């Protein structure tokens, strides 16, 4: 008698789940892009006014970098010793530097270097971090131990010193600097991904995937990794700002990108000698570094709040 009961119950549940599944399927067909996860995230992001301002500033700066030739009023390389170290005026919005070059034009062109170095360095750092983090999370055991110990080692060296050492190996070009900047963020991303994977791995859908005999590779790339992306996206957007700042710091020390390339940090470094007579040489490029870093941080904050499932209702 009890057996029969169980059978009936199972049947009932089966029918129910089948029905439910069917319902779900129908919904999926009608689903518009407005139901997508991406749309929800964007909607939540848009509610955060400050982050939207940050995003707008970034978009404006990217457009500036793309259309630098059209925007810049002067050739950024044109040397004009007769008008050196001029204060801001109607002809030169941000004044001129020690060689009489127009600072506004140099900042406009500098956006290309500063933004792209930030994006490239964070992209390389994040991708390598994902690779190592995924290896650690996937294999576990001694692979994980080795990777984490290497992370310990890299993180015990002060960031900026490691950056300087690595930049000496690669040289002082654009890509060399990007590589040097990417190195120190690899351990952080690795740990972040591994920690996220550890918590995702415990969830029911992974168990379900195992139960229907998905291969470990499939579970890894189709189920676990996509669900670990939220913190990585946030850390990526924050990293861009940090890299732009570190790149400016390296150029300031005379190591990263150097004059005559109009990278913002290099401009600050070159203007340092004239701090007393022409402080605008330092003020304007620095303001732009601060502005772009601030914008990326704001966007990162907004994304984190939008992606955080804890804050969802």
């Amino acid at each position, binding site marked *: 008698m009890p057996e029969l009961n169980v059978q009936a119950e199972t049947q009932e549940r089966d029918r129910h789940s089948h029905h439910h599944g069917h319902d779900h399927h129908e919904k999926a067909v009608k689903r518009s892009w407005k139901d997508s996860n991406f749309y929800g995230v964007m909607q939540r992001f848009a509610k955060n006014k400050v982050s939207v301002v940050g995003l707008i500033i970034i978009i404006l700066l990217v457009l500036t970098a793309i259309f630098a030739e059209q925007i810049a009023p002067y050739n950024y390389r044109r040397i004009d010793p007769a008008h050196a170290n001029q204060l801001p005026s109607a002809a030169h919005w941000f004044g001129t530097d020690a060689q009489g070059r127009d600072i506004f034009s140099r900042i406009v062109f500098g956006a290309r270097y500063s933004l792209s170095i930030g994006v490239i360095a964070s992209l390389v750092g994040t991708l390598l971090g994902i690779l190592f983090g995924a290896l650690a999370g996937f294999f576990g055991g001694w692979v994980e131990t080795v990777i984490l110990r290497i992370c310990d080692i890299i993180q015990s060296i002060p960031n900026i*010193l490691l950056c300087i050492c690595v930049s000496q190996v690669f040289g002082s070009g654009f890509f060399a600097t990007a590589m040097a900047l990417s190195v120190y963020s690899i351990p952080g991303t690795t740990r972040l991904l591994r920690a996220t994977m550890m918590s995702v791995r415990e969830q029911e859908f992974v168990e379900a995937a195992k139960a229907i005999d998905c291969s470990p590779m499939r579970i890894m790339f189709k189920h676990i990794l996509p669900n670990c992306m939220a913190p990585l996206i946030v850390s990526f957007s924050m990293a861009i700002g940090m890299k732009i700042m570190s790149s400016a710091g390296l150029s300031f020390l005379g190591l990263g990108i150097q004059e005559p390339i109009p990278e913002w940090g290099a401009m600050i470094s070159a203007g340092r000698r004239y701090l007393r007579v022409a402080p605008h040489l330092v003020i304007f490029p620095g303001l732009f570094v601060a502005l772009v870093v601030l914008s990326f941080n704001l966007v990162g904050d907004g994304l984190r709040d939008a992606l955080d499932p804890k804050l969802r209702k």
Partner: protein
Amino acid sequence: MTRYIIKRLLMLIPVILGVAILIFTIMYFTPGDPVKLIAGDTMTAEQHDQIAHELGLDQPYFTRLFKFLKQTFIDFDLGTSYIDNSSVSQQLFTRLPRTAIIASVCCLLQIIIAIPLGVTAATHQGGFLDSFCIVLAIIAISVPSFWIAMMFILLFSLRLDWLPSFGIDHWYSYILPCAANCLMGLGSTARQTRSQMLEVIRSDYVVTARAKGVPERTILYSHALPNALIPVITHLGTQFGSALGGTVVIETVFSIPGVGYYMTNAISNRDYPVVLGGVTLLAVLFCLVVFLVDLIYAFIDPRIKAQYEGSQKKRLKKTEKRGKAYA
């Protein structure tokens, strides 16, 4: 507890060895000939080879690596600088206090300013004070320290002539470097304190305390804050550790003869003993700071203690089981 301490100390050894090997390897692959930088371009090939031989630069990678490791970790000798033949350890120890002053003042300022700021923001979540603190903190982490340092020089040294713009002749010479250096840390610590506080305030035991009618002040300062501060303390410890080597840029702006300044020059001069010795020393200090923070934790936080003891018990059980299985 003693076992925990010993275990943690032993775990530091591979990390420090790893740092030494890593930095040696990086410097090994760095292009640029230290001999040329020491003696200039006007020397014959024999002279070049002789100097290289004296410095041991003509030996293969592993020989040099083992020599370096033996010298550093067994003889405790960091060698002498290629450039001026001064003892590296002596140089580092005269310079370290200057950098340590900046790092400690920054750490102290974070405890005094950033933590109350973060708590204020969290307790006024969504209100004006919260937005004010958040904006302040995010601006602080977004401004490059070397730029704000120059702005301070411009205002306080060049325009107002209140404080010196370089050197370490007086105690007040440290005001501007510390102020410029601590800004970013202030911002990040305040942000972290805020988010930790928010998380803790939402937790069940705080709700229980409220339901019991515990005064809000007691809830905040004796229930929520100690728990919220635990990750903040790690953050501070890591920051202090990395500030010991990470004030390079500030030291350059203010011409402070500290560790960072010394190291940067050594790296561009290919002064291998200085770079290797300096980075190893900094890594040791960093690891020790992190270790001390962890130790403080284990004393403060009973959960961590329990965790450790728990794992020990588990291990005992496992060995027992294994013993049974074999039997």
